[in-house]
C-alpha cells in the first residue's frame, strides 16, 4: 500500500482542521502540557505538536482506558447484563513509531484466540495517524530496539522533512481519509531521499543505547534470575508501579464492581493494575504470591524481556523511556538494567520459564460477560464451606473437564474463580464448593436455591483423563484441593469409566475434622472395591469426635499398599495448598514415581480467566490458561511455581 504524498505545513493544518470540523471523529493528538506532552482532544490544528519527544502516557489510554466500563446491569435483573462498548470513531494524531509498535504488540495479546471484544471495538474504530520522530526523548532507547521507525501499524504517517511534510499511506482507510480531507501532491524522489536521510540520522540522536540486541534479552535474563542486583535495586523501589502505568506495552488490569448509591444499577469496570503493587497477586484467602519487592521488581523485567518473548516472540519493551522518566529512584529503565545484567552472562535455554501448551478455547460470545445461571441446591458443609449445585439458564451443559474452573459472578459484589467439583456431565448442572474467605465467597454463602449467579467458563486446562487410562492413580489432596479433585475422582470411579483405570488410592488431609469436605463422597469412596481411601486431619480439638488419623497428609503415604503399584505405571495427582506440594512430591519421588507422571493443580489469582489481566502468572505462564492443571515435569523448573 505504502504510497507517499507531500503536503505543506499549511495544508497539513487544514487537513487536521477539516477532520475536526467534520465531526464524525473524535480527533485527538499530541498537545503540550507544561514542558511535557500529552494526548488530548484537539480543538484546533495549531494545538497539535508534532515536535514532541514523548508523551507522559502512551496512547494505550484510548484502547485500554485507565478506567473502563465492561458491562452494566440492573441489580434486580442482573441477567440482562449488557456489555458496554465504546462506539466512538476516533483519530489519533502524532503516534511515534515506538507507540505504534507497542500497539501492535498489544494487538497480539488482546486479539488472540480469546479476543477481547472491548479492545477490538476500539481498535476497529480508531484511525492512526502516526508521526516520525523529530525530537528524541532523553531517556528513549528506541534506536536500540528498532522501534524508532515503523513500516506498518498506521493508517497514515506524517514525516516532517523540513520544507514540507510527507504522508505515508499505510491502509485503505488512511488513503480515503487523505483523499477526502487533505490537499496533497505526489511526493518526488527528492522528497523520498530527504525522508530516508531523516530516518538515518535519527539513530545518531539516541544517547541511550542497549548494548545487546533484543534477541539476547531472554538469555541474559534467564542467566541472572538469582542475581543480587534484583535485591539491591528493589531496596530503593517505592512500589508505586509508576513504571507500569506509563508503559505502552503493560496491559494488566483489575476488575471491580461499582454500584450506584441507590443500589439499583451497577457496572463492572476494569482499571489499570501494576505488578509492582503488592496486592497484584493477592488471592481471596489473603495469600500473596510475590510477597517480596524483589520478586515484583524482577517480575516486570522478566515479563518484558523473557516471558512475553517466549510466548509471543517479541521483547515487550519499545524503548520509549517513559518508565525511566517516571521512576523516582531511577531503577525502572530497562536500558540501564539490561546493560548491567548483560555483563553478568547469558544462557541459551531462553524458554526455561515458559511451557508451551495448547489452550482449550471453547467459549464463544463476549469473553468477559457471564452467562446467567440458577442455584439449584445449597448445602452448608460447615461454617466455612458451602456446596452449590448450579444450573446454566441456557440449558446447555457446562462441558468441562475435571480440573477446569469457572468464574462465578455476583453482580454488585464481584467475580471469583472456583474449581468445578462435579464430574463432566450432559446436563446443564454442575457443582462447586465455596470456602468463605472474601467478599464474593461470603456473599455466595448466603445464597439460596433459586438465586441467580453469573458463570464464565469452563476455563483453563483440565486433566487429560485419556492419558491416565491403563494406569494406577494416586490422588492426594489437602484442604479445598479436594474440590477439583472430587470432579476427577468421581469421573474415574464412575462405573462407566472405572475399568479404564487400574488401582486407585485417595489420600486426603484436612486441617481438622469439621473441615473435611464432601464427607459423603469420602465415605462412599471408602466402600468402593479396588479403591483405597485414607483421610487424616492435622489436629483435632477436644470437643470434636474423630477416630481417624491425625497428622499431615504425608503421613498417609506409608499406608499405600505399594505391592499393588508399579511406580512407572502410576500417575499421581496432587491438589492442595501451596505449602503441601513440596512435601507430597517428595513422598511420590521416594515411591519412585517419575516426575512426568505427577500432575498438580495450582492456585493463583485468576481474575480474567483468559490470559489478559496478568494476575495469575507463574513466571512465564498463566495459571488460568496453561493451568491450573500442570504436569509436574513441565512446571518444576519454574522458580515461582512452588517457591
Amino acid at each position, binding site marked *: 500500500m505504502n504510497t507517499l504524498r507531500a503536503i505543506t505545513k499549511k495544508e497539513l493544518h487544514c487537513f487536521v482542521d477539516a477532520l475536526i470540523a467534520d465531526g464524525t471523529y473524535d480527533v485527538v493528538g499530541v498537545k503540550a502540557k507544561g514542558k511535557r506532552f500529552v494526548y488530548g482532544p484537539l480543538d484546533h490544528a495549531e494545538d497539535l505538536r508534532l515536535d514532541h519527544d514523548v508523551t507522559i502516557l502512551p496512547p494505550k489510554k484510548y484502547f485500554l482506558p485507565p478506567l473502563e466500563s465492561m458491562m452494566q446491569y440492573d441489580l434486580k435483573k442482573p441477567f440482562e447484563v449488557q456489555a458496554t462498548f465504546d462506539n466512538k470513531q476516533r483519530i489519533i494524531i502524532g503516534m511515534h513509531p515506538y507507540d505504534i509498535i507497542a500497539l501492535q504488540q498489544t494487538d497480539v495479546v488482546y486479539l488472540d484466540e480469546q479476543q477481547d471484544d472491548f479492545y477490538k471495538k476500539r481498535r476497529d474504530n480508531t484511525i492512526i495517524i502516526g508521526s516520525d520522530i523529530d525530537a528524541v526523548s532523553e531517556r528513549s532507547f528506541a534506536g536500540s530496539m528498532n522501534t524508532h521507525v515503523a513500516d506498518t501499524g498506521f493508517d497514515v504517517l506524517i514525516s516532517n522533512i523540513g520544507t514540507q511534510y510527507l504522508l505515508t499511506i499505510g491502509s485503505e482507510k488512511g488513503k480515503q481519509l487523505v483523499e477526502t480531507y487533505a490537499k496533497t501532491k505526489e511526493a518526488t524522489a527528492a522528497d523520498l531521499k530527504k525522508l530516508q536521510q531523516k530516518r538515518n540520522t535519527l539513530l545518531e540522536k539516541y544517547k541511550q543505547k542497549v548494548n545487546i540486541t533484543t534477541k539476547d534479552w531472554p538469555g541474559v535474563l534467564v542467566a541472572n534470575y538469582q542475581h543480587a542486583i534484583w535485591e539491591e535495586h528493589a531496596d530503593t523501589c517505592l512500589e508505586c508501579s509508576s513504571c507500569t502505568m506509563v508503559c505502552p506495552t503493560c496491559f494488566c488490569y483489575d476488575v471491580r464492581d461499582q454500584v450506584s*448509591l441507590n443500589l439499583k444499577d451497577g457496572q463492572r469496570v476494569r482499571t489499570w493494575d501494576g505488578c509492582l503493587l503488592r496486592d497484584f497477586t493477592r488471592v481471596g484467602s489473603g495469600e500473596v504470591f510475590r510477597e517480596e519487592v524483589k520478586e515484583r521488581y524482577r517480575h516486570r523485567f522478566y515479563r518484558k524481556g523473557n516471558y512475553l518473548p517466549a510466548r509471543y516472540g517479541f521483547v515487550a519493551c519499545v524503548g520509549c523511556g517513559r518508565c525511566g522518566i517516571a521512576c*523516582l529512584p531511577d531503577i525502572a529503565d530497562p536500558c540501564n538494567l539490561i546493560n548491567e545484567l548483560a555483563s553478568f552472562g547469558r544462557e541459551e535455554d531462553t524458554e526455561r520459564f515458559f511451557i508451551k501448551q495448547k489452550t482449550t478455547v471453547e467459549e464463544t460470545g463476549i469473553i468477559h460477560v457471564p452467562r446467567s445461571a440458577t442455584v439449584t441446591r445449597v448445602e452448608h458443609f460447615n461454617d466455612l464451606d458451602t456446596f452449590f449445585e448450579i444450573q446454566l439458564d441456557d440449558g446447555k451443559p457446562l462441558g468441562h473437564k475435571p480440573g477446569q474452573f469457572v468464574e462465578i459472578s455476583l453482580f*454488585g459484589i464481584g467475580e471469583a474463580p472456583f474449581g468445578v467439583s462435579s464430574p463432566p456431565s450432559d446436563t446443564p448442572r454442575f457443582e462447586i464448593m465455596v470456602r468463605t474467605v472474601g467478599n464474593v465467597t461470603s456473599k455466595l454463602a448466603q445464597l439460596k436455591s433459586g438465586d441467580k449467579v453469573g458463570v464464565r467458563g469452563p476455563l483453563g486446562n483440565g486433566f487429560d483423563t485419556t492419558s491416565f487410562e491403563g494406569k494406577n492413580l494416586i490422588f492426594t489432596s489437602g484442604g479445598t484441593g479436594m474440590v477439583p479433585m472430587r470432579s476427577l475422582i468421581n469421573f474415574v470411579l464412575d462405573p462407566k469409566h472405572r475399568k479404564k483405570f487400574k488401582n486407585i488410592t485417595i489420600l486426603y488431609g484436612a486441617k481438622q475434622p469439621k473441615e473435611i469436605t464432601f464427607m459423603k463422597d469420602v465415605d462412599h469412596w471408602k466402600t468402593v472395591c479396588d479403591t483405597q481411601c485414607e483421610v487424616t486431619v492435622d489436629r483435632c480439638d477436644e470437643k470434636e469426635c474423630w477416630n481417624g488419623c491425625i497428622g499431615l497428609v504425608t503421613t498417609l503415604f506409608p499406608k499405600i499398599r505399594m505391592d499393588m503399584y508399579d511406580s512407572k505405571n502410576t500417575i499421581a495427582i496432587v491438589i492442595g495448598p501451596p505449602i503441601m506440594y513440596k512435601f507430597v512430591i517428595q513422598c511420590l519421588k521416594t515411591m519412585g514415581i517419575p516426575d512426568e507422571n505427577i500432575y498438580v493443580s495450582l492456585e493463583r489469582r485468576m481474575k480474567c480467566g483468559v490470559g489478559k489481566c496478568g494476575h495469575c502468572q507463574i513466571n512465564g505462564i498463566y495459571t488460568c490458561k496453561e493451568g491450573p492443571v500442570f504436569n509436574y515435569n513441565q512446571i518444576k523448573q519454574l522458580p515461582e511455581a512452588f517457591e
Partner: protein
Amino acid sequence: MKQKPRVAVFDFADCEGCELQIANLEEEIIDLLEIVDVVSFREVMKEHSDQYDIALVEGSIMRPIDEKRLQGIRKNAKILVALGACATIGGVNKIRNQWMPDEVMKQVYGDAKVKGNELFNVGKAKALNEVVPVDYYIHGCPIDRDEFKQVITALALGKKPEIPRYPVCVECKKNENICQFELGNFCLGPITRAGCKAICPTHNMPCDGCRGLIKKAETECVKEVLERYHLTYEDIRRRCTMYNYGREECTYDK
C-alpha cells in the same frame, strides 16, 4: 429487601468538612436515604436515636469527655467507620502533639480560670483507633465523595469496603499529571495511600499525605529519593507534620 441499615453520624474535634461532603452529594442524598435510615446526624437533623447499626464518626479525640462519648458510640454501633483524616489518623489536630497539652493550654488560655472545668480538660490529640477499635476507614482531608459512596454501598450490600493499599502515584499517573518532583516540588504521593484520585497533584499541588502514609519515612527507598532530590530527613519530617505527626506506618496493612 432486608431492613435498611440504621446510620448515625457523629463528630468530634474537626472542621466538619467531611460531614459537609455528605451534604455535597447533592441530589444523591435522596439515593442515600433510600438505602440507609439516617437516625442521627446532628449537623443537619434534630432527631436522634441510639439505635444504629453503622456509626460514621468524624474528628479527633481531645478530651476525656470525648473519649467517654466515643466509647458509648462504639458500644451502640455494630460497625464503626472513621470518617476523614482527623478520625482516621488524627490529621491536622496532631500538629499540636509536638508540644505537651499543658504547654499549649497555658499559651492559649493564659490566666483564665479553667482548671477543673471538664470542657477545658485537654489531652493529646488522638485518632479514633487510639481509643476504640475501628472497623473501616474513609480516608482523606476531606473525604472523597466517590469513595464515601463506595464504602456506604459496600456496607449496605454487606461487603467489606476495599480501600487502596497502594500509593497516590498510581492514580496520579492515570491522570497524566507531570510529576511534582519534576516540577521541583516535594510531594508525599509516593508514600501516601491512594483513593483521592490524586486530586492535589491534579490541581498542580504536591500531596500532603492526608490519607496516611503507607511507608515509613525511614525506609531505604525514601532515603534514596530524598537524596536524589537534595532533600533531607528534616525536610520529610516537616512535610509529614501536617497530617502524620508522630505516626509510624507499616508498609502495607494486611
